[in-house]
């Protein structure tokens, strides 16, 4: 299990390959990658991601450990960036390895659902006209937790 919180970009291809290579005994590896999209209204120039150093790592460790146990994963990975990102940048990734595909998929979705609403990250969109707005949490993201 590996948890990384960093400002620098990460190498998705290399991380995915290394995770898959190390997944001994697993028959199934799932990855999810989040990419900065254009803002829904207007053209986004920058996305700033603020986080709570210390708590962030603890929250991610807890979420990943819960997934490891619940789906008997052979491995799990979470990488999340903070700081200034631009559209097209990779924000974060998770990866899960399990014997069977259903477990690997479910665990990855669980990681994403909890990471969205329970890890202390906050996104701010800065449009190219300089206007800035914090991204509101979505009810559907909070609701997504009820299925687990």
């Amino acid at each position: 299990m590996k948890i990384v919180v960093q400002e620098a970009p990460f190498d998705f291809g290399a991380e995915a390959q290394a995770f898959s290579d190390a997944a001994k005994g697993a028959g199934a590896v799932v990855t999810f990658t989040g990419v900065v999209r254009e803002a829904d209204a207007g053209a986004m120039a920058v996305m700033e991601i603020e986080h709570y150093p210390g708590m962030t790592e603890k929250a991610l460790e807890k979420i990943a450990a819960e997934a490891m146990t619940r789906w008997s994963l052979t491995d799990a990975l979470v990488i999340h960036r903070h700081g200034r990102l631009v559209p097209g940048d990779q924000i974060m990734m998770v990866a899960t390895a399990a014997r069977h595909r259903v477990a690997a998929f479910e665990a990855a979705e669980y990681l994403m659902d909890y990471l969205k609403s329970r890890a202390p990250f906050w996104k701010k969109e800065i449009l190219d006209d300089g206007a800035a707005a914090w991204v509101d949490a979505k009810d559907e993201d909070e609701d997504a937790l009820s299925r687990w």
Partner: protein
Amino acid sequence: MDVMYFAWVRERVGLPKEKVETSAATVAELIEELKSREDRYAAAFADLSALRVALDQELSDFDAPLEGVREVAFFPPMTGG
């Protein structure tokens, strides 16, 4: 204790972190104390339904006791991922 603010709570309060001397027994009492101090706190804490609190880096709630707590953090609902 250390009190921390993140995202728009930080922007409204005007600082990321401060030391607060308090005898508040619960998070809710601490909030009332801060709101009575200055308008910027009243603005930050106007709508508690839009706020979350962590005690010593664990999510908690407004009824939670503060005894033994070293770090309180206030922030909006999280938007990671």
